[in-house]
């Protein structure tokens, strides 16, 4: 599960993957909406890892 934390790094740091204007969405070129879309996606990935881990022992 912890590997999920690496996914945003791959999706955002490999720039040739998203350096395009088309397809655009609501007037946003692909470059912009793709990166904005990663905000909720990485939150979701971190949440999945959070859910799967064993909780801390009570303090």
């Amino acid at each position: 599960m912890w590997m999920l934390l690496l996914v945003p790094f791959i999706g955002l740091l490999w720039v040739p993957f998203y350096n395009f204007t088309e397809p655009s969405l609501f007037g946003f070129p692909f470059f912009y909406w793709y990166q904005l879309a990663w905000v909720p996606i990485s939150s979701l990935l971190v949440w999945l890892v959070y859910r799967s881990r064993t909780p801390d022992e009570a303090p």
Partner: protein
Amino acid sequence: MADQIEWVALSVFIFFFALVTVMGFFAARWKSGPVSEHLDEWGLGGRQFGTWITWFLVGGDFYTAYTVIAVPALVYAVGAYGFFALPYTIIVYPFVFAVMPMLWKQAHANGHVTAADVVQGNYNSRGLELAVAVTGMVATMPYIALQLIGMGVVIKAMGLTGELPIVAAFIILALYTYSSGLRAPALIAFVKDIMIYIVVLVAVVVVPAKLGGYGAVFSAANDAFTAKGGATGLILKPAQMLPYATLALGSALAAFMYPHTLTGIFASKSADTIRKNAILLPAYTLLLGLIALLGYMAYAAHIKVSTPNDVVPMLFKALFPSWFAGFAFSAIAIGALVPAAVMSIGAANLFTRNIWKSYVNPGISHAGEAAVAKIASLVVKVGALAFILLLPTQYALDLQLLGGLWILQTFPALVFGLFTRWFRAEGLLLGWAVGIGWGSWTAWSNGLKPLATLDIGGASYVFYVGLGALVLNIAVAAVATVIVGLISPNRTGATVRS
């Protein structure tokens, strides 16, 4: 540019400024502990901030006023390349999730207040502790100065001239930080963040509606970049891709090495508070992405500015009624107060724990620590103010850029110790020195541009100098660790991990 005083905007501004001033002084009693009797109280707000307070506090001091001014200014000036702040502030959170709870646990178990405390605890090396502490303080100073620049931009937009308003604002800030400690920015952050959310949500809905939609905004920006000769544009040129990615990665690794962000981490109630925040804080990143687009909206609105930093204030003045512009300017100015306060507290904690306690008065009491830190926070703020008033603005910008590169060099000392005890203090210290030396020299010889060039087999690669310095830093630390291990196999200094 602004000749007459905008009275409506100014009145709104003064109202909100007065409100947060009262809150700042009142904060000493909020969730109150003995503020002057222990550094944990003054410098970390009692180590009790839960998920929501931490969310507002870290959101308030990581996404600074300067960000709101500078990111759209950069996007306005260079297009897609300026957008690297977005991937940077996305990938920082998986990193925070994986690393910062471990840092918190160590700090909590041992009563550590600063990054240098943690390093000293892990390596028992005064040299490494001093290196981390001094780097933190030096990197923070120009960052505080930048907050003043951000505040100055909006004050100027309301027609106030001269340096008196900014001096007055800063003295008020210094006084309530002195009396309330971290509780003041934590409480004010609620007001600041809610105001910024309102401003940005209104702006990203209303502005494109006035300008003909996002399609029109992007195409106006595209036309402007084409007319300028096409060196930059709506997407990255091939030569910009590697700088873009390395700037994003390097900035993300550096972000939570700064004293002000770490103060937010150490002040949280539990490791789980930090994990939840790694999931919730990206809401601010969405906001930042939308703020960045204000730079393009300026083209669609045909704003003329003398310097890119005026893009946001000019856009608001052109498109909004005076009272809302005043609200937006208050949000930005208050947005400068929160990070400036947390930064001065973070730097004061470093000075107190890792300079004063380590070298001047090792037997200092808890109340003594709090007293030293309070004075140090005043000195730090006066220093930043003098910096802005006496030196050219460009110095603050250049130093902040170098500060990012320097603070990144504390990464191995702080983070590696959480996972492995393999590295030796001597190696980490040498790596730190080489990273800072090579990085500063390279940035300096490139006219203070944050990029370095490497030629391999005829191809040349351009990348963020801070990240290059970090790689060099780690390599030197590893080699030196092996060599020191051969010379003296017994680790005299290292303590047993708790």
